[in-house]
C-alpha cells in the first residue's frame, strides 16, 4: 500500500518532462510495471484522479504495461516464465534463479499537447 508515494512520483516525473517539452497538457502516461512489483493499478488510478486535478496532468490517462516475470536458472542457464511466485526451473529443478525480467518499474513515455 505505498501507492500514494508512487503516484506522487508519477506526477512529479510527468510534470517535469511536460514542462521541459513546453507542453500545455499531458494526455497520456505510459508506465511499465513488472509482475514482481507489488503495485495495484486501480489504487494508483484512484490516487491519480485526485492528485492530478489542477495540474498540467489533469485528465491524463494512465496506461499500465505489465511485464511477465522471467527467471534465469543459474545451474542450467535456462530461462522460463514464472507462473506463480515460487517455482523451480522446469528444466533442471533448481531454485538458484535470478530475475531476468519482471522487476521493471518505470515511466516509458508521455503524450502531450502543444499549443
Amino acid at each position, binding site marked *: *500500500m*505505498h501507492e500514494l508515494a*508512487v503516484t506522487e512520483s508519477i506526477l*512529479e516525473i*510527468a510534470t517535469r518532462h511536460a514542462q521541459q517539452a513546453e507542453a500545455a497538457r499531458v494526455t497520456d502516461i505510459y508506465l511499465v510495471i513488472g509482475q514482481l512489483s507489488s503495485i495495484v493499478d486501480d489504487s494508483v488510478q484512484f490516487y491519480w484522479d485526485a492528485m492530478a486535478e489542477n495540474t498540467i496532468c489533469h485528465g491524463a490517462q494512465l496506461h499500465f504495461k505489465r511485464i511477465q516475470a522471467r527467471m534465469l536458472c543459474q545451474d542450467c542457464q535456462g530461462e522460463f516464465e514464472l507462473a506463480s*511466485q515460487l517455482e523451480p526451473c522446469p528444466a533442471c529443478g533448481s531454485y538458484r534463479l535470478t530475475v531476468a525480467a519482471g522487476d521493471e518499474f518505470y515511466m516509458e513515455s508521455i503524450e*502531450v499537447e*502543444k499549443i
Partner: protein
Amino acid sequence: MTVNRVQVVENILNANDQVAQLNRQALDNAGAFSINLMASPGAGKTSFILKTIQALRTDVKIGVVEGDTAPVTIDADKINAVGMPAVQINTGGECHLDAVMLKAGLQQLPLPEIDLLIVENVGNLICPAAFDLGTHINLLIASIPEGDDKPYKYPNIYRGLDVLVINKTDLLPYIDFRMDYFRQGVEMLNPGLTTFAVSCKTGEGIDAWADWLRGRLAASRQV
C-alpha cells in the same frame, strides 16, 4: 494544437533512489556502517537492537533511527535509556521509511561518532522492500509466531535481503512452525542467504550474530 510523444524512461522511484545515494555517501564519509532493519509488527525489532547494543557496546558506538507511523517515542526512548543516540521519525501514517525521511533522521545524529547505524523500518513486510534508503545491508527479522509460510506470502522482501534473523526460537516447542518448510521457501527466493536463529528472550544465538556483525564492521573499515 499538436500531440507529441515525449520519451521519459525514468524509474518511478528515481527521486527516492537519488536521495538514497546521497545518504549512502554521507554514511560512508562518516565511516558508519548501516543496516535497514525490517520486520512485521511485533517481530522483536527493538528487542533485537537492544540485544545487539548489549553485545557490542564495549567497542562499537551504535546509533539508531526509529521509524514509526504514529507520533510516539516508545522505541527511541528504550534506545536512549541504554545510552546510545536515537532519533524517532514519524512517517505521518506512511507504511514505510523512504530515503528523504532517513536523510532528515541522519541530520539529527552525531554521525562521525557512530560506527554502526541501525535503521528500524516501519513494521510491514511489503512497502519497505520497495524503497532504497541508502543503508549498506537489508536485514529482516522473521519471528516464529508469525508462521512458517511468510517467505511464500511475501516473496519480494526476501528477494532483496542480505541477512535474515529468525527470532523467538524459545517459542518453537509451543508453535507449529516447520523450520524446514520455512527455510526451503527462503532458499527458493534467496539462495545461500546468511541466516541467524536467535531468541532475544534467552539470548540464544545472539553471540553468533554479533560475531558476524563485528566481521562486517571490520571489513567495511578496510574499504
